[in-house]
């Protein structure tokens, strides 16, 4: 027990030592700090590097960082305009997923960032491909490749047909590292307009009821429903987690009129909503 108290102190000391060393050195900001390369896509003139925190892509919400290396002078392009299109090849058809095109990251020179929300994948990780179109000094280029997208262990995205006969994709974005306490929960809600178009759904409502199935399916207090935020086009609310462990975040999606498009209340008989995410920590 005593060690338990000492460890944080040791860590703190080590950490503060490490910090002070950093401060005294004058390397340029490492744009790739905390990022791991997923893969490279190349054409004759450029290599496009994809990065994420984990170095892999998986179902759900993925933030993907991009750098474009000019093969002629081995420098990284700082003035590209980039769009991308992820596509899943299904036996009878193709479809895309909700995404945002990469934009230059603030305070970075050659790093671009966007997201992709993969709603499904094949069990071996195959099926998705990515086409990146980019323009540098009014010259357009394109590059494409297959992607490996792995199935997440926990449900963090749901694709479904709502009671209004529209298809929706709902994805969990935050909390990425949940704490015991009140977490800000962020969710993206998208409508599948066509196979390739997934616009943001505005002004709907997500009700939230987190439960622990391993412990009598109890809930937690002071959760708030998730409401639409104009600034970032996402839904935000408070998620209370009273302990670590496995949580099921039961949701209901309601439109502006208050019609339930998907999901049910959790009761004694119905232990889980059909619209839910899973969380473990």
């Amino acid at each position, binding site marked *: 027990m005593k060690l338990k108290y000492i460890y944080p102190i040791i860590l703190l000391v080590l950490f503060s030592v490490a910090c002070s060393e950093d401060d005294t050195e004058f390397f340029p900001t490492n744009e790739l700090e905390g990022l791991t390369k997923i893969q490279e896509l190349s054409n004759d003139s450029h290599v496009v590097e994809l990065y994420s925190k984990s170095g892999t892509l998986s179902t759900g919400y993925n933030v993907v960082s991009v750098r474009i290396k000019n093969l002629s002078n081995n420098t990284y392009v700082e003035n590209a305009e980039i769009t991308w299109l992820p596509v899943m090849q299904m036996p009878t058809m193709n479809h895309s997923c909700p995404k945002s095109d990469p934009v230059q990251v603030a305070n970075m020179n050659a790093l671009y960032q966007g997201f992709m929300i993969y709603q499904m994948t094949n069990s071996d990780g195959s099926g998705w491909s990515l086409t990146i179109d980019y323009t540098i000094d009014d010259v357009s280029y394109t590059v494409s490749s297959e992607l490996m997208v792995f199935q997440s262990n926990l449900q963090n995205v749901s694709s479904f047909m709502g009671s209004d006969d529209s298809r929706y994709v709902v994805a969990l974005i935050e909390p990425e590292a949940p704490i015991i*306490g009140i977490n800000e929960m962020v969710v993206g809600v998208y409508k599948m307009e066509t196979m390739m178009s997934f616009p943001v759904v505005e002004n709907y409502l997500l009700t939230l009821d987190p439960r622990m199935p391993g412990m009598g399916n109890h809930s937690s207090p002071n959760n708030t429903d998730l409401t639409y935020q104009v600034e970032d086009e996402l839904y935000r609310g408070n998620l209370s987690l009273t302990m670590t462990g496995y949580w099921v975040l039961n949701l209901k999606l309601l439109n502006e009129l208050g019609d339930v498009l998907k999901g049910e209340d959790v009761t004694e008989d119905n232990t889980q909503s059909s619209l839910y995410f899973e969380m473990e920590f």
Partner: protein
Amino acid sequence: MLPKTTHKAVCILKWNSRFTTVLFMFFGFYSWSQEVEPRVSPDTLNLQEVIVLAPHKLNHYKQDKPLSSIDDYLEKAQRVGMIKRGRYAWEPSLNNMTSERLNVTIDGMYVFGACTDKMDPITSYVDVSNIEQVTISSGQEGTEHGHNIGGAIDLKFPEAKYGPKKFKSSLDLGYETNGNYKTTGMDLAYTNTSFYLNLDGIYRHADNYEAGGQEEVLYSQFEKYNVSGQMGYLFNAHHALEAHFIYDKATDVGYPALPMDVSLAEALIGSIGHNYQSDSTLVKQWETKLYANTVTHIMDDSQRVDVPIRMDMPGWSDTYGFYSKLQAERFHHDLSLNLNGYYNRSLAEMTMYPNDSSQPSMFMYTWPDVRTWYTGLYVEDRYRFTPSKILSASMRLGYQNNRVANDEGLESLKIFYPNMGDDKNRMLFAFSSNYHFVKKDFDAIFGLGYGERAPSVSEGYGFYLFNSFDRFDYIGNPNLANEKSLEAQFKTNYRLDHFQIGLEASYFHIKDYVIGEIDPNLSAMTIGANGVKQYSALDYATIFDVYLHANFQFFKRFLVHSALGYNYGKGSHGGNLPLIKPFSYIAEVSYTAPYFNVAIQLQGNGNQSRYGYNYGEDETPAYGILNMNLGHVVPFHSNKLVFKYGIENVLDTYYSTYADWNNIPREGRNFYINLSVVMN
């Protein structure tokens, strides 16, 4: 020589209670004559009860069962009730109020239990071999060491003893048939004129006990070791140093009333002190002590066959503190000061293991590393108008700071209290005054008091603490106001030849009475719980208790003692408070000769008709049990053998009392024998 308060043993007889009859048998009568003298030692001025254990004085013959646990001794005090969750570690209540409203100290030292479910009241971390006497002070009479509402229980170490060079030893053996309960104790003492050393050890082991009708009570076993040492060095007539330590370890403790047991309850308690004593100066006595203690409590359910979910609930509590108390005497004033302080950290966690092993374990802080810093000053003055008319007044002023040191724990609580900060300061105040007069055949005390207390760690910061009594999960509330109590107490005795009758009563009006209130919007965490209660406060609550007792001595060696008690507790919402003792009675006839004694006792409670329905209580039926005890003393050379034996619950009655958690039955018939060998 160092302070001697030899009057104490005598005083108890004056402020007599149920237990004192036991002492009367051997000891009471020669002091009877002193009682009628209007000579008052300071100790008689309190509304106190004093239980003398004193195994160190090797006077086992005063007790009917010397190897009883501290809990057994406490239970004999009139105002004390013992809440039982099993055979071990009972929780004392005083004036129908439990731990959080009491100030329980070990020789003035604060020790805090490490269990969120009150499975380790600090009285469980000492044993009879460590303690010479227990002082029980009702209400605001008990603020010498800290703030309280219901009163104080102080477990006192033996007084220092210096004298001619001497080595003493004793061996105690005890056996009880019910639960195959074995006790072994040893005591070694060395004394000379400037140094003494005492070492003692005690070991207890019991299997499951049987309730009346030979019904085995599962998970009621326990095992316990206790070792303690005490030493002192006398520099000169005025200055002395003293040191104490206690190591106490209980393992495999079953709690039949609870869903979990305890695999380890361990405490190390140490102190070092300086004493100054003088008869000629203004300051008669000045005692300063530094202390530290650490408690580890491991609650688990590994022995239980059928549980909805496996869990571990360890807890830790460390306390560091000091006190410095001074006694001065001038003209007709006896003045006492006590400056004290402590720092405590209480941390407890809960880890639950889902039945679906693919899910990760579930973890939370149930006590989020709460740091409590308290410091306060106590001042008391007793003014003697005449030797038989005394007015006394006391006051305590304290400052308490609570801080949640664990960030995760703080974030947990912020789920309920988003605006709470990590610390909270409180000022606490207590005042009491009483007037006391003694006449040849009559004496009385009348007292008034006002006191405040801060919420306990569980009340302020507990997180989903399951109470198996009302089956609710409890959430602490850091915003609780201090609980405040106005009290009046009265005590009188009347003596006529060999007859004595006494009456005592206390009334408490408690404002902002802290208690759990159901929040129907919250979902219980514990499987099978009825819901969630948040600590909150009733506008007020009133508690009243009254005791009537009488003794009659005849044919010199016979004594009849009887006592009746009535208690009442109601909240401002009109409901009954929980754990209020119903009508109680005791009647005892004893015969005492120099080397032999026998006593027969009838003890019982009335029907608990005013039960606290809102707090999980039901109507506990009336009961009565019959006990019998005998004792022999056999001297040989300068040594002696002391036999104590008897039968508890002679009729093997199946019963439980208002204080038995979840109505677990108490022990059925039990034959016991204690043997002490005293070598001088």
